[in-house]
């Protein structure tokens, strides 16, 4: 806390007296020296890209006295444009976090997983240990019995490269089935194109924006926030649909406090108005879409009045927004949010959202969506892997080939849902049941298993059953302290990673390179992967000697070089953003079965799904319970940054948002600590109450990522509540494989003790550079 004015008034009485005794105050010379600032010495700069969220902003790292001191946005980078969010700024504090994993650890013989008893080991011993057990599992069950989970840009080595070389299709990222799966699958089967890691919204030209559960400003995706703010300054109108008065809502011209889970009804009513009132873009729809007649028939009775009774929104408002959208079309846009796994019917909701966009004629048109293009980049010429990577990802491919080569098995979650990507939560079950075949080992890279996958008790039970569980991470996260072997990776400021190719209006390639040497005995992911591959007998798949050679080969193949990239950081290519740019070359961007935007999806019908999106009511809340909603804080990324002192000083804990009147009814006081208990009896907290007008009375809200239980995380430990702990239930989206997480309900249990924790500033003092 700040030393405040009042405190100083008391303090200063004494010290001013001392000055008076000293006499001539003007001649007073301090007996101490003022420490030199970092920027007064020699400063070198290194280009790289950020890892404090998934957005991958280009950064300029400033090093002075052998230490990283400051990180700025790269001016010429299309993501950061010289600006950074708080997490990007605070990367330095992660690099020098004394709680980091420092050397390889092997679980003490005879101790249980979860006990956290470890002995130090050399890299050689740790990797030998892993390789021996992996090969044993392969002999007994086959290569598919090892699952690979990964999160972060270094995950390419552990969910794509190595699993494909090893022969396991069971590689998954939380970024898919507990995040973007519905919006990607829906986009694929509506537009024939994924959304990709950088939502291709043409912010620069838009005039009317409708956000549905999309928390710009609270999820500080740098570029998006820049463009969003610029659009509003330019006078673009904003409508925010959210049960909570989010930061974005506070900037909106209209806030629609919708009843949770009823968004599809609202979207269908908008489609109804656009068609019934003839407001849709006739020319565009005729030229680029199929299925208007079926759609018109389908939404005939989905009037604003029908939606009003479901959504708790006035029919007039619903109608007005549809008309305003049409009035601004095609420069009106409904951007897809990112985390779209809400209720289990999410692919259909996202389809409805895309259909509204299509009716506005905005896809591939200025002011709507641009058509993102991947940059041209070659793979390293390694021998072909037995399998194609299957993890997918918010910025990756939508999954490997469906054909399984002889001798290999299909993904363990195949058949549970329609999409081609792996669903991380569905790979937990085979660890327990052995069905459809056993998964006996898990390599986990940077994925917080207890903060991202629903039903934590099940995950823990599954981990107990495994023959091998390896965690590769930077910090001693709770799931890390369950592993048989812990491999300490160095942070993004100390390593190279594979090149990232960002699909964008102006496609570009970014280089990650180390700014300083790895601290302690930590190693980069590429090195860990390569050494492990060699020990597994897969040396033919890693023919490169080191990462420099690997990167240089890839870059030489596109007429650049590692040397050039080290100097530039970012390589920007030309895009093809609008339909007219495609048509000039007689190319069709819509890779759907019909080659057009599919308002009606024949493929869905053939697979037994609704060919047109329909409204499915969400699971109702039991009496006395509130629907648990969750979201982001602008200063934190997932559950990854709660041990960063700079960020923790800005946001040290989360609070449970409860509607003011509702809280008063429950007898709650502002700021008091309570427990949250879900309808399965799982209790979480204690967490502070935030009574607020900013939320409806049928739901409560938590910022995701708090409530860490690992004592090794000295800053994060015990602060706030984890939404994931309370998410013991999910509804599987049978189309995308997404895990619908907003089907969990909590009640408030008052009178929790105030957690006895040291102040962040006290804990942070030792972490100062």
């Amino acid at each position, binding site marked *: 806390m*700040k*030393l405040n*004015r009042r405190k*100083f*008034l008391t*303090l*200063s009485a004494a010290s*001013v007296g001392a*000055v008076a005794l000293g006499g001539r*105050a*003007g001649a*007073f*010379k*301090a007996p*101490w020296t*003022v*420490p030199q*600032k*970092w920027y007064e010495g020699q400063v070198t700069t290194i280009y790289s890209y950020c890892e404090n969220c998934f957005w991958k902003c280009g950064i300029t790292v400033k090093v002075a006295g052998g230490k990283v001191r*400051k990180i*700025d*946005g790269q001016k010429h980078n299309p993501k950061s444009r010289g*600006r*950074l969010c*708080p997490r*990007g*700024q*605070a990367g*330095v504090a992660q690099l020098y976090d004394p709680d980091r994993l420092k050397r390889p650890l092997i679980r003490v013989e005879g101790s249980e997983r979860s006990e956290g008893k470890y002995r130090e080991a050399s890299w050689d011993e740790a990797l030998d240990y892993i390789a021996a057990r992996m090969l044993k599992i392969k002999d007994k069950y086959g290569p598919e019995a090892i699952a690979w989970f990964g999160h972060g840009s270094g995950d390419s080595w552990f969910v794509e490269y190595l699993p494909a070389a090893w022969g396991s299709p069971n590689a998954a990222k939380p970024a898919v089935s507990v995040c973007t799966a519905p919006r990607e699958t829906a986009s694929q089967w509506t537009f024939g194109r994924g959304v990709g890691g950088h939502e291709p919204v043409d912010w620069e030209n838009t005039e009317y924006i409708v956000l549905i559960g999309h928390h710009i*400003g*609270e999820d500080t995706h740098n570029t998006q*926030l*820049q463009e*969003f*703010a*610029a659009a*509003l*300054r330019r006078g673009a109108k904003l409508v925010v649909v959210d049960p909570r*008065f989010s*930061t974005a809502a*506070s900037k909106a011209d209209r*806030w629609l*406090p919708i009843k949770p889970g009823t968004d599809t009804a609202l979207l269908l009513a908008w489609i109804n108005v656009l068609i019934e009132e003839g407001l849709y873009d006739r020319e565009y729809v005729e030229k680029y879409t199929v299925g208007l007649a079926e759609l018109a028939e389908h939404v005939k009775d989905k009037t604003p009045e029908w939606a009003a009774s479901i959504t708790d929104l006035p029919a007039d408002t619903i109608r007005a927004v549809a008309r305003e959208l049409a009035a601004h079309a095609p420069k009106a846009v409904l951007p897809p949010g990112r985390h779209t796994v809400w209720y289990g019917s999410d692919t259909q909701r996202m389809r409805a959202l895309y259909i509204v966009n299509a009716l506005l004629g905005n896809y591939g048109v200025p002011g709507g969506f641009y058509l993102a293009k991947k940059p041209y980049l070659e793979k390293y010429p390694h021998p072909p892997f037995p399998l194609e990577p299957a993890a997918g990802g918010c910025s990756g491919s939508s999954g490997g080939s469906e054909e399984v080569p002889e001798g290999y098995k299909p993904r363990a979650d195949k058949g549970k849902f329609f999409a081609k990507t792996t669903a991380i939560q569905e790979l937990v079950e085979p660890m327990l049941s052995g069905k459809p075949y056993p998964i006996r080992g898990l390599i986990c890279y940077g994925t917080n298993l207890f903060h991202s996958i629903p039903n934590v008790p099940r995950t823990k039970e599954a981990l107990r059953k495994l023959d091998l569980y390896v965690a590769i991470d930077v910090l001693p996260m709770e799931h890390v302290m369950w592993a048989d072997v812990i491999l300490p990776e160095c942070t993004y400021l100390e390593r190279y990673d594979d090149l990232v190719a960002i699909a964008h209006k102006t496609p570009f390639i970014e280089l990650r390179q180390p700014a300083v040497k790895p601290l302690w005995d930590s190693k980069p992911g590429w090195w860990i992967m390569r050494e492990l591959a060699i020990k597994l007998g897969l040396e033919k798949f890693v023919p490169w000697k080191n990462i420099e050679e690997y990167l240089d080969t890839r870059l030489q193949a596109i007429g650049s070089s590692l040397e050039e990239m080290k100097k530039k950081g970012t390589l920007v290519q030309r895009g093809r953003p609008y339909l007219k740019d495609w048509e000039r070359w007689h190319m069709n961007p819509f890779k759907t079965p019909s080659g057009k935007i599919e308002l009606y999806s024949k493929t869905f019908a053939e697979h037994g799904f609704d060919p047109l999106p329909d409204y499915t009511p969400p699971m109702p809340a039991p009496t006395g319970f509130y629907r648990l909603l969750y979201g982001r804080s*602008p*200063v934190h990324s997932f559950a990854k940054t709660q041990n960063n002192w*700079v*960020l923790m*000083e*800005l946001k040290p804990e989360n609070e449970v948002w409860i*509607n003011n009147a509702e809280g008063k009814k429950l007898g709650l006081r*502002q700021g008091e600590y309570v427990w949250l208990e879900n309808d399965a009896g799982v209790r979480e907290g204690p967490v502070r109450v935030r009574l*607020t*007008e*900013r939320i*409806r009375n049928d739901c409560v809200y938590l910022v995701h990522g708090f409530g860490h239980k690992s004592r090794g995380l000295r800053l994060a430990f015990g602060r706030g509540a984890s939404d994931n702990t309370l998410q013991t239930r999910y509804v599987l989206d049978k189309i995308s494989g997404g895990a619908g997480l907003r089907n969990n309900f909590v009640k408030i249990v008052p009178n929790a003790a105030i957690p006895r924790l040291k102040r962040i*500033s*006290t804990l*942070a*003092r030792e972490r*100062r550079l």
Partner: protein
Amino acid sequence: MARYAMVIDLESCVGCSACAAACVLENEVPPGHNRLWIRQRELGVFPELTVEYRPEQCLHCENPPCVPACPTGASYKNEDGLVLVRYERCIACGACVAACPYDARFMNPAGYVDKCTFCEHRIADGLDPACVETCPTGCRVFGDLDDPTSAVREALAKAGRIDVLRPEMGTEPKLFYLNTPSKRGLNDTEEVQQ
């Protein structure tokens, strides 16, 4: 010679705190202290609501009460209008901390009073202050009030509404808030919800 000032457009600010994090790292602000912080106010009743995110820091007043309060002359206003501290002259008496009506100063444990300098060292190199440079929303603009072509002057000219903190103090701040979302201005504490 200049008259440096900053404007913050509250219509754009989302309270993301990128400025605060950048400030801590650029200026090595010790844990537990801030040169720059963000206040959040919730106004109104469901569903008629307003939220204001308001970054605060030293306002580099034209009439800074902290300067005359300083017994050693460590606190001063330079020729470019920046209110600064000569750290080596500071005896850490705290008189200026008490004199500042905005709570903008703090005692650095290194033994001197510390506060926002508008990143004087960066301005000297022709750069914007760290908070301005990093702000993703671009709600912060920095420049010279005496230069009619400066970005600051342009932003002030275009603003729908301009406020300063506690104008009744007569400090004449050079940190201006544009487009305050509350109709009743910045200083209305009654609406503040704790």
